[in-house]
């Protein structure tokens, strides 16, 4: 049989396959370097970075929910400067493709973080987090307003030639209109979904389970909603979509791609099984073989909505 092509291109970022470790679910990547060869991943999305170091929220920071989990980490992080100095060199040495996730409490901070990363060696793309539901000051006020989204993306666009990938929130009526705003502002791709704003209460203590009261829901529970949003955005924009939300196995990767994703990120599943990466690749390759697919990109958005599946096929 012919060789299989799983590659994905987002501007200057060329990935051998569509599997990206999701931001905030893979540390800075190096934490997993002994478990998985980072160069075999399509990319590594770093934990969200502000300009300065951040302590994040007090524990409890996570809580499990039915087929999902809430997190309110509060973007604890080492700041962009320490990231460039302490993490990037080793990530480069390990040949990771680095998609650096950036945050800001102001538009200027996004711009400044992006500038620092553009000047650094070894950054392959910038993912702009305008969708973190867990902190009051930053991100989400941009991500929940069409103008805010447009403005942040345009401003970052002006200071970098790196591919920029705004990460959209699912906590809006129409993610597709935000996808449009992002594309109009010059984004090279969009990624979605970030987590769903949610809450869990300890009924015996009558208190929120998370110190931050609310947190973001991730994991398989949200996958059907995320699939719908990716599918809607695919009708709206031409730029690549990085889909995510509850991917647990190769089937889910294919589902996102059929809905319209060019690449995917895997977050929560990595906690459950840090050795998931080669299993995902194997599953995708068997699927391609079984279906005679040589170029994985051919299935992007290929769901046939004209005629639904048979249940009793």
């Amino acid at each position, binding site marked *: 049989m012919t060789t299989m092509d799983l590659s994905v291109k987002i501007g200057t970022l060329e990935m051998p396959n569509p599997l990206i470790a999701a931001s905030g679910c893979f*540390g800075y990547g190096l934490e*997993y370097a002994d*478990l998985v060869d980072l160069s075999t991943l399509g990319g590594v999305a770093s934990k969200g970075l502000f300009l300065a170091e951040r*302590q*994040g929220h007090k524990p*409890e920071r996570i809580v499990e929910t039915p087929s999902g989990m809430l997190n309110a980490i509060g973007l604890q992080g080492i700041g962009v400067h320490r990231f460039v100095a302490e993490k990037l060199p080793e990530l480069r040495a390990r040949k990771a493709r680095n998609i650096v996730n950036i945050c800001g409490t102001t538009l200027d901070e996004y711009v400044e973080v992006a500038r620092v990363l553009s000047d650094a060696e070894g950054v392959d793309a910038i993912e702009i987090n305008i969708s973190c539901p867990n902190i009051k000051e930053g991100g989400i006020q941009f991500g929940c307003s069409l103008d805010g989204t447009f403005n942040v993306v345009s401003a970052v666009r002006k200071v970098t030639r790196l591919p920029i990938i705004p990460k959209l929130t699912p906590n809006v009526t129409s993610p597709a209109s935000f996808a449009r705003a992002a594309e109009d502002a010059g984004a090279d791709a969009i990624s979605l979904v970030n987590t769903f704003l949610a809450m869990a209460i300890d009924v015996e203590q009558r208190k929120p389970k998370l110190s931050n009261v609310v947190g973001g829901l991730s994991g398989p529970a949200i996958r059907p909603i995320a699939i719908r949003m990716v599918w809607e955005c695919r009708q709206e924009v031409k730029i690549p979509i990085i889909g995510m939300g509850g991917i647990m196995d190769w089937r889910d990767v294919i589902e996102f791609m059929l809905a319209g994703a060019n690449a995917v990120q895997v977050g929560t599943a*990595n*906690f*459950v099984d840090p050795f998931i990466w080669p299993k995902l690749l194997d599953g995708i390759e068997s699927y391609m073989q079984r279906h005679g697919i040589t170029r994985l990109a051919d299935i992007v958005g290929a769901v046939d909505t004209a005629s639904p599946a048979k249940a009793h096929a």
Partner: protein
Amino acid sequence: MPPVDVRATVISNVRLSHDYNVLTFSAPEVGALTEPGQFVMVKTTDTSEPMLRRPFSVFEVLRDDLGTVRAISILNKRAGRTTNLLYGLGAGDPIWCLGPLGLPFNPPESGDAWMVAGGVGLAPFATLAEALVAVNVPTTLFYGARTGEELYYLEFFDRLGVKLVLSTEDGSIGEKGRVTAPLETSLKELSGPNQVSIYACGPEPMLAAVAKLAMQYGQPSEVSMERTMGCGLGGCYSCVVPVTHADGQTRYVRSCIGGPVFDGAVVAWE
């Protein structure tokens, strides 16, 4: 050595009480790598209900007559979903086990070893005791529980030659009250600093008290902290412990990779 993930099989489940059991399973690959104080992340289903793994200290590393590792066990105490499932497992059931993870206890630089366990905090001390005894470190276990019935494996430690100092909240065995009381009595009897190394595992108020006593009497301490853990590998930042750094600043440190064993003197107790 990086950790491994094993789909192990339960070999035995010994119920110690209505709440406690010792679950032994075939994860020799994990056992062979484990150092005292390290933990594993386990899961009893391959579904998303429950979804996340849960952290457990490696309780025993079990070897055959030739010394080859055959299995490990965990000392499980029922607290919620997964611990209930672990209580209910039977021989032959599958269990997914990732490990070993985290930083182990450091052996004493000199002097005796004092282990302080509260309740299920006994878990990391079976392997630590074996390691210490193997290199002839005189070892004491201060072990407290609510009642005498909840003091387990006394014979195991006794056989190893570990000195036992017991306490119970209801006074049914040993001194009545908290385990820190006999600990303080013993500390008072020491002639100066750095004579013993203290290792503690148990509820956080106990750990804080032990760390403070250790500082007060000039002895080094290591405490094993318990936090909600999403991944066990440094990926999620759920498991943080506030640690006072050399620069005087307190920062959150991920206990799965910067712990679970911490120097009792640097934890910023709340």
